[in-house]
């Protein structure tokens, strides 16, 4: 895995370079700010970016959005010492694959990177084209799913994780309006629905999805797990929620309960 470190603290950069280098990662670069980040990503082609939030110039959240827009296949591990209560939610909603609140230890970042790599490997395996005859046969028996998220990076990861768990992804959408259309056309077994989206939000789309496809189980995908949001979504007919960043083990156990409620 090729890692790019964006962190203004020199000591932190040095430690991360040494730690990750010793654990089999290739640190392709280290930046003290994000001024040239996009050019550096093009040049260095990392698979993971360890991105600090409070940087001189543009902050990590702004940079994260740029990375996801231009390079959805790159995983971003977001690192921050900010005390903002909703920073984790905002990072997750912006497409961070991992999150670390400072101060964190060496073991914590290695664990986070390991999980991010596992998710990415699942996504990559799922992206491989299946042999056609088998694929067609398998698709016929697998539960269908639609993924709705305005962040292409999250869609990519979720598609990988769900495919690996045996679901057949029949459509993907980037906003609430598209979600309603996809639900009407495909009538999927499960629809994974982001909350914060342009055009029509997840919560606004939810009742319309339930109306056009009542048999579809709608699962919210969110970085915000506040009681208020959970209650609101449940009141509108959501069957549960998956927390961002997406973790396969959690999704697997959630889907088992959802698809086999008696087991």
């Amino acid at each position, binding site marked *: 895995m090729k890692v790019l470190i964006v962190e203004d*603290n020199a*000591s*932190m950069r*040095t*430690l991360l370079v040494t730690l990750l280098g010793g654990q089999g990662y290739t640190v392709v670069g280290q930046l003290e700010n994000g001024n040239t980040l996009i050019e550096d990503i093009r040049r260095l082609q990392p698979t993971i970016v360890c991105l600090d939030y409070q940087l001189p110039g543009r902050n990590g959240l702004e940079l994260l959005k740029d990375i996801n827009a231009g390079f959805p296949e790159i995983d971003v591990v977001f690192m921050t010492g900010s005390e903002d209560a909703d920073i984790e939610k905002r990072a997750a909603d912006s497409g961070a694959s991992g999150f670390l609140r*400072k*101060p*964190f230890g060496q073991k914590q970042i290695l664990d986070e990177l390991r999980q991010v790599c596992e998710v990415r490997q699942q996504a990559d395996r799922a992206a491989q084209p299946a042999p056609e005859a088998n694929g067609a046969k398998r698709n016929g028996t697998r539960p269908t799913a639609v993924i709705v998220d305005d962040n292409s990076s999250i869609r990519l990861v979720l598609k990988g994780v769900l495919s690996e768990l045996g679901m057949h992804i029949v459509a993907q959408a980037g906003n609430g309006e598209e979600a309603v259309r996809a639900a009407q056309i495909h009538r999927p077994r499960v629809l994974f629905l982001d909350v914060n989206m342009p055009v029509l939000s997840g919560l606004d789309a939810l009742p319309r999805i339930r109306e056009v496809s009542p048999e579809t189980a709608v699962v919210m995908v969110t970085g915000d797990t506040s009681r208020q949001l959970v209650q609101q979504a449940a009141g509108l007919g959501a069957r549960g929620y998956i927390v961002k960043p997406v973790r396969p083990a959690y999704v697997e156990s959630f889907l088992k309960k959802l698809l086999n409620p008696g087991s």
Partner: protein
Amino acid sequence: MTLMIDFPFPGANAWVEHFKEVELPILRLTANRLAELRDTAEVINTRTLANIIMHDPMMTLRVFRFMKENRSKSQNAEITTIERALVMIGTMKFFDSCQDLPIIEHQLKGHPKAMLGLLKVIARSRQASLWARDWALLRQNTRFEEIALAALLHEFVEILMYCFAPALAIGARERLAANPSLRTRAVQEEIFGAPLPEIMRELIELWGLPELLMSLLDPADAEALNVRNVNLAVDLARHTANGWNDAALPDDFRAIEELLHIGHSHLLERVGAPEEMVAAARLAETS
């Protein structure tokens, strides 16, 4: 804010290289007290300020480090006290240097055991410093402030470990507690990858800490009176932290009485031993 170390570095030099770069955090109490005094920076008494600083070994280290990093070429004399350091730095410049400092309690928020361990070491260091100063004054030693400072900073590397490698620091403490027969140096080498005195020696030089601290590490200086003054205060603080019935205390008392040329009951009174201990000592001396 830096990365917390979970894996030992390969030797003392690597630790020193790490500590060279890090921003030293201070206790929240110190930050609050300094914030309260900031408006009086131009008129504040340096002794008042020094007392606040010396309540916090990490802040004390920061002052020496700042001095070393900002020292002009003409300043050749060794700075051995915080008050003198403050005079050299200037109180305005000092306050300018300590804005938005990292806070230990914040840094160790996820490590309550380490926070507790750290507070115990700091409490012990403060107590050792008070005793060392008192005994130095009793000995009419003019270097009493340097002696008090050396006792305060005697365990500064352990304090650094709690701040920057909390899991390792707790590991070392628990290993020693579970196996009291183990040699401290061997446990430090195993857990930290280096004995703490080796790291301490390098940092004393790097940060311009008082030379007396270096003497504490040199076996050839062990019998020097000022070194004994510090070491005995540190030992007494460590042993009394386990209670006034710790098995090592009789030997400590004998050595301190010899250093200060005072009787047992007098010493017990001076160090604030429980009243019944003092009374028993008095009774034994009169009978």
